[in-house]
């Protein structure tokens, strides 16, 4: 069971880590100073959460791997983050819509995880729920502003929607053996979360005059560590120093 929990922990920690790596690229480059600070806060929360999860994953695995070894010495085929997290920042509409899709998903997921039979996971999740509640308020309010702001912001939101929507299905793909974790009360059933998520997102997008398309082909693969080409570049950059100087302590 530990091996399965380990892999599940990687799935959720990697998603936070890769999304944080993406959004922290806005630090110093945001559309205005206050927003720069807000987005950096969100990146800080996500990195912090991933640290706790990776640290716990390393303990469970029992091979002595630290959070940093797990973050910096695994390659693309051992990363389990959701595909949507590795998609490019694009413009601010794309960054915020990606964030809204993920925040809505995470709020549902972590609320359930805070009731997990695994007490450590439950404790990390309970802390995260407070943070995600704020993230979601932030991203949802931007999506609404873009949907109802100017013609340009609406067009940009719509383009972002077409870009990102096919990657949303991947968030609901379970890892192999996840049903056992669900049965044992460790993690929630993603199908249930999916129903709630779709309703929340449908309401949000309706407020923005964007109608959900039917029968869109959904990409998947991240549950088996199969990614888009973007992840390789993210990891190459993120892991460059520890890989170049494996003996060094930072």
């Amino acid at each position: 069971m530990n091996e399965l929990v380990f892999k599940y922990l990687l799935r959720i920690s990697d998603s936070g880590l890769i999304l944080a790596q993406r959004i922290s690229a806005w630090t110093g480059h945001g559309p205005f100073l206050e927003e720069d600070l807000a987005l950096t806060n969100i990146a800080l929360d996500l990195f912090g959460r991933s640290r706790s999860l990776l640290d716990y994953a390393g303990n469970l695995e029992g091979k002595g791997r630290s959070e940093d070894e797990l973050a910096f010495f695994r390659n693309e085929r051992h990363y389990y983050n959701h595909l949507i997290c590795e998609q490019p920042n694009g413009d601010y509409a794309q960054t915020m819509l990606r964030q809204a899709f993920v925040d809505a998903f995470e709020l549902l997921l972590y609320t359930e995880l805070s009731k997990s039979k695994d007490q450590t996971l439950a404790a990390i999740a309970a802390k995260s729920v407070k943070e995600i509640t704020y993230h979601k308020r932030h991203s949802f309010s931007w999506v609404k502003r873009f949907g109802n702001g100017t013609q340009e912001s609406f067009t940009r939101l719509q383009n972002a929607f077409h870009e990102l929507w096919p990657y949303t299905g991947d968030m609901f793909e379970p890892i192999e053996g996840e049903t056992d974790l669900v049965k044992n009360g460790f993690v929630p059933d993603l199908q249930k979360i999916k129903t709630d998520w779709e309703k929340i997102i449908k309401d949000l997008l309706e407020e923005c005059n964007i109608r959900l398309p039917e029968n869109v082909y959904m990409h998947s693969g991240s549950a088996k560590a199969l990614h888009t080409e973007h992840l390789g570049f993210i990891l190459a950059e993120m892991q460059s120093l520890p890989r170049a100087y494996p003996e060094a302590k930072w």
Partner: protein
Amino acid sequence: MSTIDFEAIFEAKLANNEFIEPKDWMPENYRKHLIRQVSQHAHSEIVGMLPEGNWISRAPSLRAKLVLLAKVQDEGGHGLYLYTAAESLGVSRDEMLEALHTGKAKYSSIFNYPTLTWADIGAIGWLVDGAAIMNQVMLQRSSYGPYSRAMVRICKEESFHQRQGYEIMTRMAFGTPDQKEMAQDALNRWWYPSLMMFGPPDAESPNSENALKWRIKRESNDHLRQRFVDQTVVQAEYLNISIPDKNLKWNESKKGYDFSPPNWEEFKNVVKGNGICNKERLEARNKAHNEGAWVREAAAAYAKKQNQLSTAA
């Protein structure tokens, strides 16, 4: 009351070490000097986010990444207080940003130097923030109230940053031979630019005289530079790395170190825009601002519509 009386009140406040507040009368030159200094300081904070931001994606551990991200965020926060302090003098943030983006306003030249290795992130915290603190500690007692109060908070955070930078330097200097080499190389490259941060020698500092008279500044450039050198030499000794100055020598009679001056020609050139990163820094600021325009417009349009809705209801 005549103007002369206002001036007398202003002078009396300065003489009594009282603060000048936004609604107080102040001489036009005092206001102008402060707007220039405080906005330049604010610009330095936000341009200063760029060289360090350059390493966020490559920070070598998750802890290092969090620390760096939080630090860069603090700098954005400092920019925010300082723009607000400057606004209290009757200039808008848009006007200040316009001056930055068109190259009319200056920012600290140190940020036109590149961050080439991870040790540079340590050296910036240790030396650049260290030099900034020397300058800023005295600004906590500056005569303009809002500036002085902003500096109290900024100084607290800056001294934390300096410790973070020194922590990185310690890990590098006591690390593997590669890390030690990076630490020495970073000190070699950042030493003289850090000395330049105190501004030109007193004899050639055009803005110093008034600033000292008005208590906007309280110590001279050369005096602060000397104190910085004296403090930093011991810290470099602890790290067992060498300050790149053959003339560095303890002078018993002045109870301080003798040291070589930085290359002031280089300083003038970097101020003029010829530093290796000047163009890139300004382009990055302009790009963020220009590409953010539609975001700000959308937010304003949305807020207006919401207001109309609530008025109608």
